[in-house]
């Protein structure tokens, strides 16, 4: 369990944030620039001493303002990956990687040097100096250096923010892989929603120094009262699925989620592989009776759970599909025309899904 509550004042800015998150697992703090999310991370790392509050990780108290307890950062065993990588310029990549390993407690368990190097694909870089690395390579090395310090908690401060789209696409799969390969709890700060969708188990939304909401990603993504999440192109939900069947003949992959299943164009994934789906509200249409002769592959029986305000001329429908929730954006006109009321059984037509493959072990 990750338990954080902090109060700190800066000139012109006050931080008052508290949340808890289960461990192991990935906790993502999401919010706009200047909302204080990086400050929370710095406080957990011990690089900032908050005025008041308490920070504990897995039952170990790192900071307690009331008891005047402050564990020095070098004793906290929090591996940090900074946005600007902060590799030591005078050391080779290998020496950078070994810096934390040498200083890790003897009895600390964690992945070995060779394992981390191959996991991150940095074998060819070991002899180089940081100045000779690309941005994406630097972040992979920084990640390896943090991992090798055998941390009890891994902290990442917008590790992909300084990278362009191509470099980001290069590093993100490594992060997703780590998520499942390691049992280290991860606290991840970002202002990019695609990273949230891809990595988060627990989501913490921050704004102006305060926590707006915190909880499991699936639950928060389906909420329509959090305008911050609508920062993406549309509201939508995230579903955790597993590969249930491969249909070679039709070129389809079946994915099961709690309450139903979906088919997607065939993906080269083994059975049982964990996959995350993002389904945007505007990609979900509804019908009050089962439609025939459709090109749409995914048709799910659902129950209309609630009608929530959307835009000027449309609303968001909350649809219960088994244990899962889908959001659908329809016009206000359609609500009247179809006589939609909560409790009505409907058919959800899913026109498009975006999915990300994860590790074999699933979200745990």
């Amino acid at each position: 369990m990750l338990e954080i509550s902090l109060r700190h004042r800066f000139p012109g800015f006050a931080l008052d944030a508290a949340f808890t998150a289960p461990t192991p697992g990935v906790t993502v703090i999401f919010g706009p620039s200047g909302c204080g999310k990086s400050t929370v991370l710095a406080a957990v790392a011990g690089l900032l001493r908050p005025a008041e509050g308490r920070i504990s990780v897995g039952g170990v108290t790192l900071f307690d303002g009331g008891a005047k307890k402050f564990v020095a950062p070098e004793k906290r065993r929090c591996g940090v990956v900074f946005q600007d990588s902060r590799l030591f310029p005078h050391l080779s990549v290998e020496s950078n990687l070994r810096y934390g390993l040498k200083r890790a407690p003897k009895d600390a368990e964690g992945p070995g040097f060779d394992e981390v190097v191959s996991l991150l694909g940095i074998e060819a870089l070991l002899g180089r100096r940081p100045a000779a690395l690309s941005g994406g390579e630097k972040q992979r090395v920084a990640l390896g250096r943090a991992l090798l310090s055998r941390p009890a908690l891994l902290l990442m401060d917008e590790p992909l923010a300084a990278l362009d789209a191509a470099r980001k696409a290069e590093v993100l799969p490594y992060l997703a892989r780590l998520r499942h390969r390691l049992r280290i709890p991860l606290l991840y700060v970002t202002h990019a929603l695609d990273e949230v969708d891809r990595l988060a188990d627990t989501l913490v939304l921050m704004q102006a120094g305060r926590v707006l909401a915190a909880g499991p990603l699936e639950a928060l993504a389906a909420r329509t009262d959090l305008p911050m999440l609508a920062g993406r192109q549309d509201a939508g939900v995230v579903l955790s699925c597993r590969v249930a069947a491969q249909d070679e003949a039709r070129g389809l992959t079946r994915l099961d989620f709690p309450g139903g299943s979906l088919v997607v164009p065939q993906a080269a994934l083994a059975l049982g592989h964990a996959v995350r789906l993002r389904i945007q509200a505007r990609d979900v249409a509804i019908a009050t009776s089962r439609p025939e002769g459709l090109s749409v592959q995914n048709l799910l029986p659902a129950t209309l759970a609630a009608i929530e305000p959307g835009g000027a001329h449309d609303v968001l429908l909350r649809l219960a599909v088994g244990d899962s929730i889908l959001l659908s954006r329809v016009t206000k006109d359609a609500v009247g025309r179809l006589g939609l009321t909560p409790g009505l059984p409907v058919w959800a037509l899913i026109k498009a899904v975006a999915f990300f493959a994860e590790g074999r072990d699933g979200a745990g």
Partner: protein
Amino acid sequence: MLEAATGWLTAEEWEAVRLSLSVALRSVVFGLPPAVLAAWLLARGRFPGRSLLDAAVHLPLVMPPVVVGWLLLVTFGVRGPVGSLLNDWFGLRLVFTTGGAALATAVMSFPLIVRAVRLSLEAVDQGLEDAARTLGAGPFDRFFTITLPLISPGILSGAITAFAAGLGEFGAVITFASNIPGQTQTLPLAIYAATQTPGGEATAAKLAGVSFALAVSGLLLAEMVSRRMQRLLGRERG
């Protein structure tokens, strides 16, 4: 080349060159650790009296060297508060000795080293030290494995500049250590002595040439070393 130089300079003149090099080298070796400490305190320290320390460090730059020499004489003289203790406890006498010349030179070149080290300390990204902290490095560990290597170009260029300047220190040395051939008569003192001697113009010119050559090569070396180190530290790509 050494042979030619030995033949070209008289034994006494050669002795002045050797003594200059020795005094300058000692001044740098003994001045460096306290200079790095002072630079660190000035760049990173937050304590009352910091501006006082800053002023004290820079005093030798703005005071007449003769005054610095005189202050040393008062402090480290055989009757001075520090000098008498050194004399009683260790039998160490600084006035009128090579060691005294080195001390006077060290005090004069101290601000040069502090300045160079401080500038490079201020240029060190403290984020790197923070990163080292999170990786488990304590304060001394961090200083020796991260900060010191990163400021080494500043230390080296400061040391070389101080060495080059130390070769020519005159006022403080002659006041504190006097002008004793073979003991405290460094190059500039020998040049001064030559100008005071009838027919010494040729000697003065020769020694002035040597002095000039040493100073210029010192500066060039400082520049070269600093560039080489920067490249080693991978700074050329920013």
